[in-house]
């Protein structure tokens, strides 16, 4: 069966190479049948990749240890769900997942746009070009279909990967990462076909939005996973692997905004081409970082051959994008100019600059070890203080802009108009700031600023909805008739919640650590934590040790928590302990009381680390609101669809 998988991948490779070469010739020499044939090849590559994926999934499901990949990542005891998720648990399988999503998306995009033959003639070879790289890697460098004499049992899956997060996090991230390839391909296709209209933007708007949504949700799930499973008390560590997903997301956020300006005012055409390319290149760079171990390790490429291939591909794509944009610069002239620095276009521009600045500083931080090694011969790295500084410097103004943007009119806003619309949000911010300072929140100035700006943004968003509802009559109709705009405001509200949650749980958190004997207690934030004893439990594959800790406020018990450790005697890495944190969701501050059993001695001494993280649960709530807002913004609008169909129909003869 592995042979079928290999054959299917070889077919995929052949098909995408044909689509690339044949499609390019067809587009350049204007050959209709060849273009259609290339399109069919791209569609067929999804079928063959699906077959290959099916082969791997089937092998995983039936414990076929003759597949090296199955033997390396699963064992007989592993439940079916995790066996299937082992598909993306290793290098080769995750590459296959990437190709599967890419070919699926490509097939869908090509199918939905098959009538715009002239644009698709060039989009097909670009999509095929990206797929060629991944198919090549899967066929000749890193194949999931290697076979060997089947061992009696497989190596099994690392315990930390055996949880529902592993089922959701990578696929969602891939739906996001790979999704950014589609707008890139359409943009390059538009340039290659010398089109000056906005068709490619209209065609890819929902693709960009959905990729961005998946990437955002995927990251939040990853953060939640880190928070509850790895359990160091935080949710984001500025690790290169985490940044790998954040950077394309920031670039895509900037692109989503600036593309609106191009649609409305015909400006920023070159900028949008650069942004969409940046988002795509960062998505490839992101997966390259995650797999090659280039940054985490000290001495890079020699350790992982796959890194070299990816780097080469990134360079080729960068040269292609930059070269093409440069060659087509004359076509990308703006139709209008920015009329006023006080206009919604201008705020979008500032928003873009801040987002890109943040993205690039993160990129610099991630690349710094490699750059310093190359330039000074010594590897240096930056850490949390660096990232926090720039998150504050660029992120806080961004937060404020989120509130300012909706209040400013397009084209030109007079100061009188601004005075009217700004008045109440500004008042809300000042009052909030004053109250917070009075309550002692000035212990952290970034936190104080975040909260104050949030008050401004909250007031601004509420007013948008109130004013809009008054004008249209009902909230439902308001949102229904302006899905993009009000869906966008809902997403802004989600980002606002996210900002408040992050500010509260980082700027205003309390941490205490102590070694405790049974009966002793530790105090923090008005709560007393008393260590009552130890409990041990034996399960199928682990010994679970839990410390019983009672949390009391005054005379009443707030909760009983059970932080501890699990010992897994048998794993691919030998005996393993895993940290099991205990979290109490405190309704008083919408935050968490977070307990970590740092160390449990044989004599029963517990080294307890306790954190109070106010407002942290807003972060997860924000995820749901973000999802909802994105869906509203994406929701098809019959009126708009009709108008667009009429616009792009053939000219009346």
């Amino acid at each position, binding site marked *: 069966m592995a042979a079928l998988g290999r054959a299917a991948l070889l077919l995929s490779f052949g098909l995408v190479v044909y689509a690339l070469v044949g499609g390019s010739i067809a587009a350049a020499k204007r050959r209709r049948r060849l273009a259609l044939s290339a399109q069919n090849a791209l569609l067929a590559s999804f079928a063959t990749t699906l077959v290959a994926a099916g082969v791997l999934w089937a092998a995983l499901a039936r414990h076929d240890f003759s597949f090296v990949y199955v033997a390396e990542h699963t064992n007989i005891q592993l439940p079916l769900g995790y066996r299937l998720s082992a598909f993306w*648990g*290793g*290098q080769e399988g*995750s590459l296959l997942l990437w190709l599967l999503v890419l070919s699926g998306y490509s097939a869908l995009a090509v199918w939905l746009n098959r009538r715009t033959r002239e644009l698709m003639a060039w989009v097909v070879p670009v999509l095929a070009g990206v797929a060629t790289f991944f198919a090549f890697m899967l066929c000749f460098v890193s194949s999931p279909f290697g076979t060997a004499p089947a061992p009696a049992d497989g190596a099994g899956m*690392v315990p*930390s*990967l055996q949880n529902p997060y592993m089922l959701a996090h*990578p696929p969602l991230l891939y739906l996001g990462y790979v999704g950014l390839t589609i707008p890139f391909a359409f943009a390059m296709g538009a340039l290659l076909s010398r089109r000056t209209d906005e068709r490619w933007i209209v065609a890819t708007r929902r693709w960009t939005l959905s990729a961005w949504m998946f990437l955002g949700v995927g990251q939040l799930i990853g953060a939640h996973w*880190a928070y509850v499973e*790895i359990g*160091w008390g*935080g949710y984001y*560590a500025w*690790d290169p*692997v985490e940044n790998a997903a954040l950077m394309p997301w920031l670039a895509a956020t900037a692109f989503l905004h600036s593309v609106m300006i191009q649609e409305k005012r015909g*400006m920023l055409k070159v900028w949008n081409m650069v942004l969409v390319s940046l988002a795509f290149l960062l998505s490839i760079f992101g997966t390259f970082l*995650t*797999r090659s*171990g280039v940054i*985490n*390790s*000290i*001495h890079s490429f020699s350790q992982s051959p796959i890194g070299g291939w990816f780097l080469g591909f990134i360079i080729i794509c960068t040269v292609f994008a930059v070269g093409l944009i440069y060659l087509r610069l004359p076509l990308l002239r703006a139709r209008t*100019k*920015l009329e*006023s*620095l006080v206009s919604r276009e*201008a705020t979008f*521009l*500032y928003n873009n*600059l801040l987002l890109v*600045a943040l993205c690039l*500083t993160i990129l610099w931080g991630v690349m*710094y*070890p490699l750059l*310093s090694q190359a330039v000074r011969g*010594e*590897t*240096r*790295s*930056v*850490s*949390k*203080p*660096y990232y926090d*500084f*720039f998150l504050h410097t*660029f992120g806080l103004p961004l937060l404020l802009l989120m509130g300012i943007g909706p209040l400013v009119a397009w084209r030109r806003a007079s100061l009188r108009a601004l005075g009217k619309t700004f008045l109440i949000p500004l008042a809300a911010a000042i009052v909030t700031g004053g109250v917070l300072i009075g309550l002692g929140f000035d212990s952290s100035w970034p936190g104080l600023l975040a909260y104050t700006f949030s008050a401004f943004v909250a007031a601004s968003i509420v007013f948008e909805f109130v004013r809009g509802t008054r004008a249209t009559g009902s909230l439902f109709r308001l949102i229904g008739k302006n899905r993009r705009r009000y869906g966008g405001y809902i997403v802004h509200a989600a980002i606002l919640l996210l900002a408040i949650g992050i500010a509260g749980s980082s700027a205003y958190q309390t941490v205490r650590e102590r*070694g405790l004997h049974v009966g002793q207690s530790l105090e923090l934030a008005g709560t007393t934590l008393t260590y009552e004893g130890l409990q041990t439990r034996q399960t199928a594959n682990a010994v679970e040790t839990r410390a019983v800790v009672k949390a009391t406020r005054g005379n009443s018990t707030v909760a009983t928590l059970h932080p501890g*450790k699990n010992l897994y005697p048998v794993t691919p*890495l030998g005996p*393993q*302990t*895993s*940290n099991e944190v205990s979290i109490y969701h405190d309704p008083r501050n919408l935050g968490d009381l977070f307990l*970590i059993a*740092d*160390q449990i*001695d044989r004599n029963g001494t517990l080294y307890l*680390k306790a954190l109070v993280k106010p407002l942290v649960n807003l972060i997860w709530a924000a995820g749901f609101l973000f999802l909802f807002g994105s869906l509203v913004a994406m929701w098809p609008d019959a009126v708009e669809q009709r108008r667009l169909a009429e616009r792009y129909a053939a000219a009346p003869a």
Partner: protein
Amino acid sequence: MRRSPARLVIALSVAAALAVFVVYTAVAGAGTPQIQPSDLARHTDAVLLVGKVVSSSGDAHSTVGLRFVLRNVNGHPRARAHVLYHGTVPDLFGVSREVVVSGTLHNGVFVATDGSLSTKCPSKYTPAKKTT
């Protein structure tokens, strides 16, 4: 502003961002060196020490602390670093595990910053376990 204020704004903003960046780097320093035990003797400043655990003993939560010995991840097979550490120890810590710890060399012993020990997870798909 008749001639495209956009260009001016962009230029000024980029300049401002760069200025902020340069000032920050000048003030806060350009990162921390990441070194292996073989290079340790040459550094008296705060560094990030990367190495593989050879042996360890003691208790990181006791006053005496955890003492462990690191060797190079690659090259210089004889190089050793002696580390004294207090604070949280990651679950994956153990002999032959690759770890990163920050601190400074004092009298031949690398005194680590409390809680700065982290391990690199051998699988490619989980980020390094952090303790701070």
